[in-house]
Every structure is written in C-alpha cells, then in structure tokens.
C-alpha cells in the first residue's frame, strides 16, 4: 500500500492494492480524484478539449476486479476485465455470442488489450459503446460497491445514474444470467474496422417449442446518446419464424421510436436509415445459431 504521506502530499497517481483502499482513497479525495481502469478514455481528455488535473486512482492492481467466474446460472465479469480477455472467456457460448462479438470488434486489437468492460460502461459522453447494448440485451446487472453498501442495478437503469456516482463508489463487476437464448451483435462503420460504429445493435432471442420467437430483447446503441430497447421491433417479432420473416421491412416500420443523433461520423437521419439493415444482419446470425430451426 502506498504511504499515507504520498496521498496527503497530493500525489497525482495512486495504485490501489485492494478494493477497500481504492474506495477509501476516492472517498477521501472527493472530486479531486478519479478511478482509472484501462485509462483509454481518460488519456484522450486532451483530444476532447478537456482538462484533467485530477489524481488518478488506478484499479489495475486489484485482482478481485479481474476475475471471471461461472456457475450454472450466471456469469460474473470483474470490471477490470479487458475486451480481449472477455472474448477469450465467453468463446463458444451461444447465449453470449453478442458479448464476444461486441468485445471482439470494438476499436482495434491494441486498444482491446487495454480497455476494460467497467471503463467502457462508465465513460460519460461515449455514445458508441459496443458493450452497452450487448450487456443490456443479456439483462446484465451492474454491481456498484461503496464502503457502506453493495448494489446491483440493471444496466439500462444504471446508465443514467453513472454521472451521479459518489466519490468512493466503484463498479466492481457485471452479472449476466445464463439462458438458452441465442444472441448476436451487429454494427455498421464507415470503414470495415477500427472505428466507432455509426449504429450497433444487440439481440437476444428465445424460441418456443415450435421454433417461433417467444421472447426478444433488442438493444440499439449509437443511434441516440444512450442505448435503448427497440420495443416496437421486439413486439413485432413475437410469434414469428425468423428465417421466414422480412426483418428489414418490419424494422423499417418501427423507426419512429428513435431520434437519431448528429455526429461527425454520420447525421442522425442516416443512422436511422441503416438501422433496419443492421437488425437484419443480427437476426441472420441468430437464425444460424439456432441451426435454422427458426
């Protein structure tokens, strides 16, 4: 543990050795410090025109936050797990395909070795996260710890609250219930890879005994400032046989629930325009996952 004198003298970088130290240090330093995960967002502050003279409290040395554990019912992913490690951990799991696709296609290989799941979810002002829709369609819970309490919050409920986390609160892990669903993640970029997506979409589908859609969770990211459920398309797909359904046409009918955001990469109207195609791509993957049984 670093000496208290370093903290007292205004040290600009503290490597927390354990979770208690991280929480107590952040609570003590208040808004003069920030928790740092992979650092890929904070180190770009200057490029965003932001100044950041806060003390970094690095979480990279906290082993507890790097753990991935499984049981029959759920997957637990520590908040410091990198995209690269996540891809390797969930490979081959049909219900988690959206997660491996999202984590495996974000950014580029070098950044995927550095960027963490916790940092990705907690980065304010980052509208194009691939992990957010993937985790949301899997009904993931975010676990937030503070010295006095531990709370598990559904991911979509957590997103509007992340700006209000108090000093000393840390996202420690993500908990994903396991299912017999098939999932997928699709994204559209200006080029083939290496950029933020203009649009992304994750879907998790369960079938009934006759191969028709029993439940559908479809989360759209990057079209608006925050990822959200595509309720209209979800309802429209219930009872459908996916392989016999014109997803693109049905999706085109349900675009009004989105207000596309304008960005340097694409205007809002374009993000909405391409969304049905992205939905169709995601559903093609799910049809394949079910072996064409839908």
């Amino acid at each position, binding site marked *: 543990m670093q000496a208290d004198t370093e903290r007292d003298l205004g040290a*600009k970088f503290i490597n927390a050795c354990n979770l208690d130290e991280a929480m107590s240090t952040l609570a003590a330093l208040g808004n003069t410090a920030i928790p740092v995960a992979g650092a890929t967002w904070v180190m*770009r502050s200057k490029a965003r025109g932001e100044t950041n003279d806060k003390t*970094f409290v690095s979480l*990279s040395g906290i082993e507890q936050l790097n753990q991935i554990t499984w049981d029959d019912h759920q997957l637990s992913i520590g908040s410091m797990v990198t995209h690269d490690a996540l891809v390797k951990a969930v490979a081959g799991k049909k219900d988690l395909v959206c997660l491996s696709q999202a984590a495996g296609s974000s950014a*580029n*290989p*070098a950044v995927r070795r550095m960027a963490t799941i916790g940092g990705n979810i907690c980065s304010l002002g980052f509208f194009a996260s691939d992990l957010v829709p993937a985790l949301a369609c899997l009904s993931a819970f975010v676990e937030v710890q503070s010295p006095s309490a531990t709370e598990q919050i559904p991911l979509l409920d957590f997103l509007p609250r992340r700006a209000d986390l108090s000093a000393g609160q840390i996202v420690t892990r993500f908990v994903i219930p396991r299912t017999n669903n098939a999932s997928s993640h699709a994204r559209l970029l200006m080029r083939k890879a290496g950029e933020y997506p203009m649009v992304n979409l994750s879907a998790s589908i369960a079938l009934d005994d006759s191969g028709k859609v029993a439940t559908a969770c479809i989360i759209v990211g990057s079209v608006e400032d925050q990822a959200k459920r595509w309720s209209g398309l979800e309802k429209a797909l219930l009872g459908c046989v996916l392989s016999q359904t014109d997803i693109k046409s049905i999706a085109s009918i349900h675009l009004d629930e989105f207000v596309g955001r304008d960005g340097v990469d694409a205007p809002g109207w374009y993000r909405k325009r391409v969304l049905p195609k992205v939905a169709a791509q995601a559903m093609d993957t799910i049809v394949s996952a079910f072996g064409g049984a839908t």
Partner: protein
Amino acid sequence: MAVNFTINGETKSFHGDPRASLLDVLRDQYRLTGAKSVCGEGFCGSCTVHVNGAPIMSCLKPIGMLEGADVVTIEGLAKLDDLNPVQQAFEDFDVVQCGMCFPGLVMSLTEFLNGNPTFDRDSVKSAMTGNICRCTGYERIIDAVMSLQAHSSSKAEARQ
C-alpha cells in the same frame, strides 16, 4: 512517486508526472523516438510498443501503471544488423515510404506472427486494424507479411 520498469532490457526509474503517457516519456525523457506521436487517441497505431509482450497504444497508457513492466520499443526489437523477420520482409518488399506508420506496424505484426503460425490475408488485415498507413495502400505490406508464412510455420514446428 518513482515508476521503475525496463525499456529494451535496461532498468529505468521515472520521477516525473505518473499521469504522463508512456509515449511522451519514451520520446521526451528517453529520446526513443521510434514510437510516433500522431493521433494521440489510440486509432492510428503509430505509437505501438510492447508492454509485457503485448502490443499496446503507448499514447493511452499512463506511465504510473507500468511499475515493474517490461517495455520493448522498435529500437529494442532487433539489432540494426540483424533485423527481425517482419523488418527484413518490409525491406525486401520495399514497402516503407514516409516511415511514420512502420514502427507501429512492425510491433503489431511481430506479435501477430509469434502467435499465428498459419494465416491468410484477411487475418493479417485484422491484425493491422489498429495501424493506419496513408502512403502505401497496404497491399504490399500484406504481401510482405504473407511471404513470412513459411518462416512462421517452421518456427512453430521447431517449438513443438
């Protein structure tokens, strides 16, 4: 706060602001200018170095996170008179133009070859996703890497 780590096998102790990027420290403190400062956002790959054997964007890594780390830059990858296979292939295929992207490309592709004894053009392109070149159009770079297919396979067999 002192950050103690190795660069190209030499022990270093850095006493500046630990929030400084590894890229800035390499270039400004240690005059290792092979890693280039271009986009500053982790997109272009010109700053790629190896940290504990893995290629990372040094512009995005605070030096304070590197206590005990082993950093290898393009300067330490091979000797000038004994280039590594990727460097030699780039020379043989005459692919270097302005030179800004190549240190990062070499770092990325060296690790790619170490982990992939067999590969195709698409997997080479995937490995290069984080390295942007504005001069070459990439195809000759990929040709050079593909020429190493036999070399990489024989290395893998030797390890077995």
